[in-house]
């Protein structure tokens, strides 16, 4: 009995000490809704597995991505098939390199391109759009016409030109993708800002005398986040696709570096020799990653939908 009384006293003390009620933010609400969405959660798990594979996959690799297996060179169709015994888990490519290591390398590059492209879009596009939308008037007009002009130039042409003129490098690819990726985002952010800036909480901030930049960063941008996050998750696969297309054309990343697009290109070229695994493995990772991103994007959109509060 003594113990019980003590416990009760402690409990009462805890209650008294627990002064501040913790609030449930909109994001916490959204997180709860997101984790109730099965497709989105499965996609998140799959995507995490892909990321884990790309980071830690090397540790169980028998061959590095640069070594050439001289023993099977020239007989790839017969000896290069996926095989656990000789260490080529995903088989070997036409030059006798281990496809397992190559796919890991390609996954790293493709994911990086996607994430970096989306990040540039999110940061530059959101700020640009929010500033244009909030300032309004002539500034808005000039800023958005600038976006119009850049967008009216065929980006694939610019990208190819960039890669040809400055040489094919990963850095140039990032620059090229970064140049175009933020345009759509800035339009979306501006549109949302226009509807946000007439809300009373922004008016209240103006009436209080909060500085415009603070209003944008504190009141506008956090409220754009829902739309921006959803668009960003849909942008990542789009960036990966763009990079794959460029690499498929033979521009993009340069040997010995590789990406999913380059691997798929190689695999497709060698299909006729009966080495189907060279196409199937990169394609498999490519497809599950894109699917995951799309489902996560869908899940986020449903979770963050402000109408369903």
């Amino acid at each position, binding site marked *: 009995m003594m113990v019980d009384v003590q416990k009760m006293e402690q409990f009462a003390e805890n209650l008294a000490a627990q*002064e*501040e*009620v*913790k*609030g*449930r*933010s*909109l994001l916490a609400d959204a997180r709860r809704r997101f984790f109730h969405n099965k497709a989105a959660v499965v996609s998140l798990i799959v995507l995490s597995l892909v990321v884990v594979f790309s980071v830690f996959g090397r540790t169980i690799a028998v061959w590095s991505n640069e070594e050439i297996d001289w023993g099977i060179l020239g007989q790839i169709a017969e000896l290069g098939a996926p095989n656990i015994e000789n260490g080529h888990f995903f088989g070997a490519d036409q030059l006798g390199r281990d496809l397992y290591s190559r796919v890991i390398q390609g996954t790293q590059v493709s994911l990086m391109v996607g994430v970096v492209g989306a990040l540039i879009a999110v940061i530059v596009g959101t700020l640009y759009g929010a500033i244009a939308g909030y300032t309004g008037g002539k500034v808005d007009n000039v800023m958005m016409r600038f976006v119009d002009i850049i967008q009216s130039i065929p980006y694939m042409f610019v990208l190819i030109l960039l890669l040809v003129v400055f040489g094919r490098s990963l850095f140039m690819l990032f620059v090229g993708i970064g140049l175009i990726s933020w345009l759509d985002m800035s339009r979306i952010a501006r549109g949302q800002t226009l509807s946000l800036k007439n*809300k*009373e*909480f922004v*008016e*209240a*901030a*103006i*009436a*209080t*005398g*909060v*500085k415009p930049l*603070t209003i944008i960063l*504190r*009141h506008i941008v*956090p*409220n754009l*986040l829902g739309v921006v996050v959803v668009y960003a998750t849909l942008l990542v696969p789009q960036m990966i696709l763009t990079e794959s297309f460029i690499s498929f054309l033979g521009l993009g990343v340069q040997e010995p570096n590789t990406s999913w697009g380059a691997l798929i290109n190689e695999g497709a070229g060698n299909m006729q020799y009966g080495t189907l695994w060279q196409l199937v493995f990169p394609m498999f990772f490519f497809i599950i990653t894109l699917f995951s991103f799309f489902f996560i994007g869908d899940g986020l959109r449903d979770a963050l939908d402000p109408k369903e*509060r």
Partner: protein
Amino acid sequence: MSKSEPILSVRDMRVEFQIKKQNALPWHKPDILRAVKGVSFDLAEGETLGIVGESGCGKSTLARAIIRMIPAQAGEVIWQGRDLMKMNPKELLGIRKEIQMIFQDPLASLNPRLTAGQIIAEPLKTHFPKTSKDETKKRVRELMEKVGLSARMINRYPHEFSGGQCQRIGIARALITNPKMIICDEPVSALDVSVQAQVVNLLMDLQKELGLSLLFIAHDLSVVKHISNRIMVLEFGDIAELGDAHDVIHNPQSPYTRELINAVPTPDPIVERQRIAERRALAAGT
């Protein structure tokens, strides 16, 4: 009510909006909407001036023009001897902490991504950036208690509060910089009747305690009558009547005011029917 210098006097305030017609060509002159047509009034220290009028008559526009949230075409706003209209942005910032505002929609006037504490602290952060975190928190808690919210709610988000509570947060935010005047833009219109009374009484208590001047905008005469010392009736941007609250309600001089008073619904059906008949007679007479 003190008979000394008015804390705020507005002289011949005019606000115009340009309205572009749809499909208009660029060289066509836009239409001009005169939202406020030369309004003048004084507000004494500790006084409440109620502004009434039907929707679209320029009440909110007038209020926003006074604190320069929208540009006015002409007029003077003398705030403690200085003209607000001629101030540069830096001087204006100093005034912003003395004149605060409460808004109509309680939920929409609070940023949904910030906690109640952060919202209330914002004016303090803007005007006194050097206030320490503990000091800020202390002030916020103090004010929350003052407006009738539990200080335990400091970490809650706006959507977790009821309409009346949200409006209390709005009031706390307006009070944190110790303002001399508060502009209340229809602060109770979006609340239900019982909560309206609570919020109005809270405002009156705070006014008495802190000696605030209030500019109280509403379209509901019964609320305005309750809180105001004087009432200004606006009719399409013009002053229809300006006078002592009791006089305006019980002895209205302008026909517009009479119509407004008659438009206040009564819960008694028999009285209501009588008044409808009266109103018809009045309309037939004019």
